[in-house]
């Protein structure tokens, strides 16, 4: 962990236009839930969260955050200004991950907590928040790792979320074992039975920890081998 790198990453996150997108998503979610709560009777508003907020908004926010702290700097090569320093590359990756995680929690998990609370029942709100925090942690590490190798990190990350977790995850229940969003739900299920129960708890916790640790380590290792190529 390196304070200067983290500060610069935060400034990079706040200084870019993507930041407004990062604000717009949670605002939209809370607005939508508030609207549906006001207009529709029953629990219709809550349904938005496990169906839209959690599986879509959270990973989108994580993708935006993780790719903003690393992607542009690698793309335009300006990361050499940070890397031409005697700073451990894993510390660089960890610092950037912490910032991405913070953004994911603030712009992803927290709005989900707020929106769920608006639909009543604070237990399931807490459960979904914990699920979001767990998934957000693993997501931000995974997407950081993807940003460290792939020029099209956003597209690759979206593919993972939409095709693997979304489409295939709905078709084949086995995908739950390899789905970050399902691991989060499983951890949340331990708090509230209203969340589904895919996979088993030790697996969900263990897998989340492994993906997080390996993701951050991998990003650091890629930075150790960061190569600067000419314009041509």
């Amino acid at each position, binding site marked *: 962990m390196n304070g200067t790198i983290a500060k610069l990453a935060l400034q990079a996150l706040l200084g870019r236009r993507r930041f407004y997108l990062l604000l717009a998503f949670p605002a939209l979610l809370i607005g939508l839930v508030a609207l549906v709560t006001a207009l529709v009777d029953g629990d219709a508003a809550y349904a938005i969260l496990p169906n839209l907020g959690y599986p879509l908004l959270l990973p989108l926010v994580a993708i935006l955050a993780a790719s903003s702290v690393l992607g542009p700097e690698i793309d335009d090569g300006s990361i*050499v200004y940070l890397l031409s320093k*005697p700073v451990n590359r894993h510390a660089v990756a960890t610092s950037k991950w912490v910032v991405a995680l913070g953004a994911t929690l603030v712009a992803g998990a927290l709005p989900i907590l707020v929106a769920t609370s608006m639909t009543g029942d604070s237990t399931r709100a807490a459960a979904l928040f914990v699920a979001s925090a767990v998934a957000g942690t693993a997501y931000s590490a995974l997407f950081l790792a993807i940003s460290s190798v792939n020029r099209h990190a956003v597209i690759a990350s979206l593919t993972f979320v939409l095709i693997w977790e979304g489409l295939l995850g709905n078709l084949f229940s086995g995908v739950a074992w390899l789905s970050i969003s399902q691991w989060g739900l499983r951890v949340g299920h331990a708090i509230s039975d209203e969340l589904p129960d895919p996979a088993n708890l030790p697996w969900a916790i263990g897998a989340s920890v492994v993906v997080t640790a390996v993701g951050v380590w991998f990003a650091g290792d890629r930075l150790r081998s960061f190569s600067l190529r000419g314009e041509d």
Partner: protein
Amino acid sequence: MSTLVLDSASRWFGNVVAVNDVSLTIGPGVTGLLGPNGAGKTTLMAMMAGFLAPSAGHVTLDGKPVWRNTETYRQVGLVPERELSFGYLTGRQFVRANADLHRLPDAAAATERILDVVDMVEPAGRRLDTYSKGMRQRVKIAAALVHDPAVLLLDEPFNGVDPRQRMHLMDLLRRLGDEGRTVLFSSHILEEVERLARHIEVVVSGRHAASGDFGAIRRLMTDRPVRYAIASSADRTLAAALMAEESVRAVSLRTDGLDVEVGDLGSFAASLPALARRHDVTLFELSPSDESLESVFAYLVAR
């Protein structure tokens, strides 16, 4: 005092060879890395700065490999050709961040000191995206120098910098070299290099073409055979007369003039007018047909 050594270093990308078996020793003082665009200067610089693994051979600083060795950067300051993309920072914040990354004991004082060295104290409070090219270049140099490195690597530092600022930068680099630092900068402009560097390394097409002090390189370049196109009132007469000259190596006639290949530029230039008058020939046109830098470099490689 630090020495950067490339030992038979090569680098290829797929089947494109960017740097081919280059051995160099860069010691204290200012060294210019000269070569046309696309010669592999940036690739060489990247290898020396630890931002590219050599495909073969070794790149070492004081005996230690630079690739995947972050400790190297305690001794090295790097000024990449890349633009700063930290436009949302002020000059001072950017230099300070560099000082902090080096964990300098008194980062604030080091920042002010180096801003003063590059003469950027006054605009340091402004955001980087309001700077001119020359100012950004100076801030980049300040950031590279803030930890007082023994080695300074600069990739095309004068590109797009206006003449006055260029003078200022050159003075600064010359001073750093005089202090005993190892300063290496790349450029594709001979005049730039010879004004600043005592020692010049020439790379062409990824190969190490020449090495020496600027006088020797300059002589190599001006003494090369040069081709001229001449148009005159009596081409054939002139051709016969030229062939008798010591400095002329070849003459060929065209329908509308003649081509001359000259070995010794100086004596050719001195003798041509007198020769033309003696044979009563009027010269209409005399133009070099291969003055491009590429042909100069091509000659050095073929030599």
